[in-house]
């Protein structure tokens, strides 16, 4: 049986990647978010029969994979998990779309082409988003939200909530293990136990919330005084500019 620690270790895998020193990790999250959003919008805007531009935009995804901390195998595994959803979407394209289009002198059904470009769009947008997240620490993502004028109290809520997810998951896993260890009903699921655990967590969350708020106040917390660093540096701006120019060329060439 996996320990609570081991299970949580698995959950923090992204956090570990974000702590590494790959080139993409060093870029400002503000720049990464802007580049990712522009890339996603331009990728989606490609015509459903336009294979060339979809393939050209894939080159940017390959470039990001090369400078990001996530391994190609991990990216493929993640795409495999998500693929049923997109495959369900495109599987009927060849049946409904019977139009004939010409590609490199060959006549092909538009349904097959649109299915292919949709899969490419899915691969590109999902991979880029995951690479950006895996190369950025959560607190950096949160503080960059301030750059986009998100209210400060919401950003601080996000940061505290993110930390709390781990604390609560740890509590939940430990409680479930304790229940299992003292259960004489084998692997049977008991709603009675679950009700008790859930109600305990509600009470715990209130107490923890109060303690955390006290700890914040003790350290002089006042929302108006809390400042965050999120200004991109010259190198970040250069990376963002080059990336955007490349994406636009690949999209509109």
């Amino acid at each position, binding site marked *: 049986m996996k320990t609570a620690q081991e299970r949580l270790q698995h959950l923090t895998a992204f956090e570990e990647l974000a702590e590494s020193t790959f080139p993409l990790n060093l870029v400002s999250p503000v720049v990464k978010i802007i580049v990712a959003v522009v890339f996603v919008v331009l990728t989606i805007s490609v015509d459903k029969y336009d294979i060339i531009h979809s393939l050209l935009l894939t080159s940017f995804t390959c470039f990001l994979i090369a400078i990001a901390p996530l391994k190609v195998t991990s990216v493929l595994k993640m795409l495999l998990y998500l693929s049923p959803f997109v495959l369900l979407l495109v599987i009927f394209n060849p049946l409904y779309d019977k139009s004939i289009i010409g590609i490199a002198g060959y006549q092909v059904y538009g349904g097959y082409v649109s299915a292919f470009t949709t899969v490419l769009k899915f691969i590109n947008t999902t991979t880029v988003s995951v690479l950006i997240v895996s190369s950025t620490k959560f607190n950096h993502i949160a503080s960059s939200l301030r750059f986009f004028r998100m209210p400060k109290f919401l950003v601080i809520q996000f940061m505290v909530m993110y930390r709390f997810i781990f604390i609560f998951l740890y509590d939940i896993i430990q409680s479930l293990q304790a229940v299992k260890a003292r259960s004489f009903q084998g692997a049977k699921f008991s709603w009675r136990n679950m009700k008790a655990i859930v109600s305990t967590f509600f009470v715990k969350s209130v107490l923890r919330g109060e303690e955390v708020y006290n700890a914040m106040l003790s350290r*002089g917390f006042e929302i108006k005084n809390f400042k965050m660093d999120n200004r991109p540096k010259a190198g970040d701006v250069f990376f963002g500019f080059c990336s955007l120019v490349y994406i636009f060329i690949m999209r509109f060439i």
Partner: protein
Amino acid sequence: MSHHYIETNELEYTYPDGTKALEDVNLYISHGESVAILGSNGAGKSTLIKHLNGTILPMKGSVNIGGTPVTKKTLKTIRATVGLVFQNTDNQLFMPSVFENVAFSPRNIGIVGDELQRVVEESLEKVDALGLIDKHPFKLSGGEKRKVCIASVIASNPEILVLDEPTAEIDPKGIGDLVSILRQFSHTKIISSHNLKFSRAVCSRGVVMQEGRIIFDGELDEILSSDKLLAAAGLKEDY
């Protein structure tokens, strides 16, 4: 620095469920003193400690820090003077990384950029935890969490350091490290603890509490040599 004394006068506190946590607590701690607050569970140690930086406000009586009474109006000044390290480290490490946790206090007083980086690194260096700067709090051991908690409090440079059960969840080596760290801190230290060896290593004065009252205030060695006091405090040296 002598103006940063701590004084409580006839302090009383009753929890909403009717439990009387403090009763007629009179205490004077001058600047630079290291005081251990001892007592069994439920003796009122944590409640007293929470009064010192205004986490709990007095119901009756008063608390003065360097002549400033602890009231709602003075909380900002009081909290800048008194740094409180809570018993539960998880509740104190509420930000997603060690850096963000230590930076929380300085940010609240307007420090940003390179200056913030310097303050955070210096604070972590003082507690010998600079290597943890980029870690997620979840991945820290009990001792490491305690070090980061202390760094996060000393980052705002308080004149008085108050620690609630600092040896909880720490192994003997971690306790040894904590003793060295606290010995470096030259300002006033107030420590609530069950651990007598630890208290003796850091403090010279001891205050024994029982059922919300102070039953002894004097040399720590005197407490340790008196079986009667040890029994009253619910303490045993060997455990």
